[in-house]
């Protein structure tokens, strides 16, 4: 087995991320050469090249970073907190709830009042969902009941989203929203990046703060508390951090599933299985996965461009099944 130390793992991930970002800037409808892309990026190219690279492709790359970091770090943090490798923003219903919040904001026209209504509604609903999960952990439920509660929340949010769509005034809008719910970062602009950036940064900072406490939590809640871990604060940080980062990115990208599940699982062995050390690599790895999937979406020769969320689900769902099969004997 090959060994990568945590520090060099971070380096490897950062380099991969930069490489894929450059690759992502190179792929698109317009056939631009690497030189033209660099020229467009630095502002030395023609106006056409600058527009394509700076206004169409660059926001897409940045959003891939934000979405991937949010999902990866939230997945790793939730897995550490719940001490369960199956925990993930999507599975716990956080993404679906954020999606519901966004749809409600669209449906009730809140977005006409302020652009910020969209991420704020998405984050509020994500927070509500995680708070329900938090209340359950306070009541002393097991992780299994927590996951089941997450599935229930997820179904409820999906059902209410469908209800909102059924009630929606115009059919054209419904199709747009359905497509958006599948998750995509195509055609986004810097407006969208700015819309979620502040929340993602704050959310990620909160999540990364929890590293050392998450490590200690591996011992179980009782022993962790006697070692000075403030469990309430830890839960609060992770719930708030996930809700902010996931809610804000769902508001601009739709729900993209399974990233928070797959990435921490793949990287765990390289950080000696320590849940706290897994946070930063998972954030970077999430961005790598989203970028790679988003490039695949453009490279795959399908009549219409695939949705990003569909691709991550195609990768993630079999992965999830395998994890469930493997952990069934431990969990149930």
């Amino acid at each position, binding site marked *: 087995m090959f060994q990568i130390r945590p520090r060099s793992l971070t380096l490897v991930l950062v380099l991969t991320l930069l490489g894929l970002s450059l690759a992502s800037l190179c792929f698109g409808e317009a056939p631009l050469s690497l030189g033209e892309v660099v020229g467009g990026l630095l502002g030395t190219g023609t106006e056409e090249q600058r527009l394509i690279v700076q206004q169409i492709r660059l926001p897409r790359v940045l959003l891939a970073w934000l979405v991937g970091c949010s999902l990866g770090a939230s997945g790793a943090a939730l897995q550490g907190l719940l001490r*369960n490798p199956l925990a993930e923003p999507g599975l716990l219903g956080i993404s679906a709830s954020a999606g519901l919040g966004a749809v409600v904001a669209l449906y009730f026209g809140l977005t006409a009042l302020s652009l910020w209504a969209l991420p704020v509604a998405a984050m509020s609903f994500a927070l509500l969902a995680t708070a329900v999960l938090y209340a359950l952990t306070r009541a002393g439920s097991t992780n299994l009941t927590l996951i089941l509660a997450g599935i229930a929340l997820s179904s409820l949010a999906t059902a209410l989203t469908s209800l909102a769509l059924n009630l929606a005034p115009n059919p054209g809008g419904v199709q747009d929203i359905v497509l958006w719910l599948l998750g995509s970062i195509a055609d986004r602009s810097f407006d969208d990046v700015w819309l979620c950036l502040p929340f993602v940064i704050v959310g990620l900072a909160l999540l990364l703060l929890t590293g050392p406490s998450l490590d200690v939590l591996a011992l179980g809640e*009782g022993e962790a508390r006697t070692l000075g871990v403030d469990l309430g604060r830890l839960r609060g940080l992770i719930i708030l951090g996930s809700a902010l980062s996931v809610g804000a990115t769902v508001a601009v990208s739709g729900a993209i599933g399974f990233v928070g599940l797959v990435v921490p699982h793949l990287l*765990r062995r390289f950080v000696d299985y320590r849940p706290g050390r897994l946070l930063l690599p998972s954030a970077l790895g999430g961005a790598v996965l989203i970028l790679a999937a988003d490039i695949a979406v453009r490279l795959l020769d399908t009549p219409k461009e695939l949705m990003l969320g569909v691709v991550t689900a195609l990768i993630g769902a079999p992965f999830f099944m395998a994890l469930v099969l493997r952990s069934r004997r431990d969990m149930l």
Partner: protein
Amino acid sequence: MSLLDIAGLDVVLGGKSLVRGLSFEIGEGELLGLVGPNGAGKSTLVKAVAQLLEYRGEIRFQGRPLNALSARERARCLAYLSQEDPVQWPISVRDLVGLGRHPYRGSWWRGAGRSGTGDLEAIESAMRLTDVWRLRERRVTELSGGERARARLARVLVVEAPLILADEPVAALDPRHQLQVMQLLRSACQSGRGVLVVLHDLTLASRFCDRLVMMDRGELIATGTPTEVLTAENLARTYGVRAVMGEHDGQGYVVPWDTSEPLRS
């Protein structure tokens, strides 16, 4: 001077009174065994002392109310080994033991995740003491029951806390490992530490503990030396057993031998 004073301790959980009016103390260098049948409230008591449960009454550590200390101070005063073995992730044995140094780590932005030299020495000596140093690179999840129990004990010792609370540390261990763990707890007391250990094995309790506290249904039944506590009457009353008692090398021992009609209920 006593290390830990417990006075009038009541624990109510979900409307049920699990510990009622318990008072006892642990002195420096003392190994105190907590015995009693299933459901006596032993684990509840230990968790209350570890500040994991709400309680009424007084728990004082070196004269100061334990719940008045900050979480960080408290973490350096008492080390708790829980009954369950819930380590979820296959972290290495060295990392597991290292987690015991958490109360001494700097702030997040100063040397996060890094261990100082003092930490490394403490970790190595605790691991050598419990004979898990050679297992340091192994995954916790790959260990045998005995190895894991010793690794977890090393994790507790490395805290270097004056008070150790161990909830059934020898359950599910073979005789050799049971003796090993009890000897380790015994030797931990030599440096002036106090140990509160929950035991089901009355033979080990009589063999290793300085004093015993016997509980039943949340109440204190008896406290004193093992000979004073493990009397035929007390055993019949709380456990409903008859025991063989004897003496070896000038030390009393108790071996539960037969069931008897309990005196109560």
